[in-house]
């Protein structure tokens, strides 16, 4: 699964004043941030803060109303086909084609991402082994539990070895053992040079795996900074300051 880490980090993702309205309100406003290879960024925010909208735009599933997105230096909005090989996306609630088995899902995702023949078989076998999906391989996706769906969605996102991994609440419905395995997987991906951006409600998730944290509130980026290992209290203070008072100043004051 892993490939050698790049010699020096390069900017994989660059968002420049990205805005998007949904349901007649501004879901994301003037969002600018960048992400380098091998970096893990946590996206925090209360419900409705704009996390999923942001990740959908980064994944190419949704088009921004304004602003620009660059992927490895190329204009992603001009070339949405870049998503095919460079982005792996696990959407919120991991939607699946209920009629297909786990194996067939991976094949379908692989073909959509340009994999075929021996390369597809090899990638499928590797990801099934890595995520321990062997017992589920022939099971229909429609009968999987939510946790199993999450793992299948993760496998689909990783199958083509993307440069950017976009995970929307990846720890949803996972048991503690699976959460630990997910964290190890994210670290492994980052070590191999993959840039990872993940949204979560769990502050512990951020301190455990992220190098950076961005906090969104009402669609606006309120905080973007490094995460100090095990400094859960500081992150909690910042997050609740923003969530309760809506600005960084009040967070600092708290």
């Amino acid at each position, binding site marked *: 699964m892993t490939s050698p880490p790049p010699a020096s980090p390069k900017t994989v993702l660059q968002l420049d004043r990205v805005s998007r309205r949904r349901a007649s309100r501004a879901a994301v406003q003037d969002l600018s941030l960048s992400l380098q290879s091998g970096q893990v960024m946590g996206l925090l925010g209360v419900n409705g803060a704009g996390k999923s909208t942001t990740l959908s735009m980064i994944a190419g*599933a949704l088009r921004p109303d304004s602003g620009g997105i660059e992927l490895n230096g190329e204009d992603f909005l001009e070339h949405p086909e*870049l998503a095919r090989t460079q982005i792996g996306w696990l959407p919120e609630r991991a939607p699946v084609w209920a009629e297909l088995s786990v194996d067939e899902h991976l094949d379908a*995702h692989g073909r959509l991402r340009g994999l075929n023949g021996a390369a597809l078989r090899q990638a499928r076998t590797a990801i099934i082994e890595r995520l321990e999906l062997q017992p589920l391989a022939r099971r229909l996706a429609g009968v999987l539990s939510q946790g199993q769906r999450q793992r299948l969605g993760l496998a689909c996102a990783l199958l083509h070895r993307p440069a950017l991994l976009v995970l929307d609440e990846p720890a949803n419905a996972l048991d503690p053992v699976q959460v630990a395995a997910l964290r190890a997987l994210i670290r492994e991906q980052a070590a191999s040079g993959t840039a990872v951006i993940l949204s979560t409600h769990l502050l512990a998730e951020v301190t455990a795996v992220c190098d950076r944290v961005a906090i969104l509130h009402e669609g606006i980026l309120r905080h973007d900074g490094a995460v100090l290992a095990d400094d859960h209290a500081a992150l909690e203070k910042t997050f609740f300051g923003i969530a309760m008072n809506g600005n960084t100043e009040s967070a600092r004051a708290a």
Partner: protein
Amino acid sequence: MSRAFVNTVAVARLEWRRLLVRPLAWVLAALTLAWLAWNFTLLLGGFLAGQIQRAALPDGPGFTDLVGVPLLGQLAQLAFLVVPLLCMSVIAGERRNGTLPLLFAAGVPASRIVLGKYLAVLGWLLLWLLLTLAMPLALTHATHVDWGKLAAATLGLALMLAALAAIGVACSSFASHPALAAAAALVIALALWSVNLGAQMAGINGGAINWLAMSTHLQPLLRGLVSTADIVWFALLIVLALALATRRLAADKERN
């Protein structure tokens, strides 16, 4: 191979696989083929019973006129119900299940998603047509078949199925629920078939209203008359429906 082709094939394979494992497609195929097989035996019985009387006529109707083409005519009637049911979930179902963004996020343009899904449905419908055609063809060793007339009727049916599938996919791209898509496709197809009914009753055989009706373009083909104008009419309808579906699907990425 171009990326566009690879994208289209990947979507078509995915949709084909989903059709193959969905009970609805099999149930529809089984019920309609059973119905057509029953009607085939009735048509064949009628044909055999009238053989002696027709022998006296120098240019009397043959096996193709009395069995082959009427059987395809029955398939055309069933298609008004079967095609909307088969197409209803192709896009509306994906939208409802939240799987449509997975295709967008794989960098597949809306046009390729629509085309891939359309080709999968069309493949299924052509298989249905071939299985129906196998019934009269099974008797070719025992009777005289007017191959030209049968080929023209088959072409007409294939074009009709292709047009109904395009309408079905377009309705599925506009609807939020598969049942709404099926109902809309049925209404549009029936309206397109009978839009010239009033003109026909008034004895008007030309004009725009007759040109607009699907029956005007299918019936000559079922009689063995192949005209470019009729083929172009079906092609225009297919292109228009698929273009509308593409436009609506592309808007999903902008609007949702």
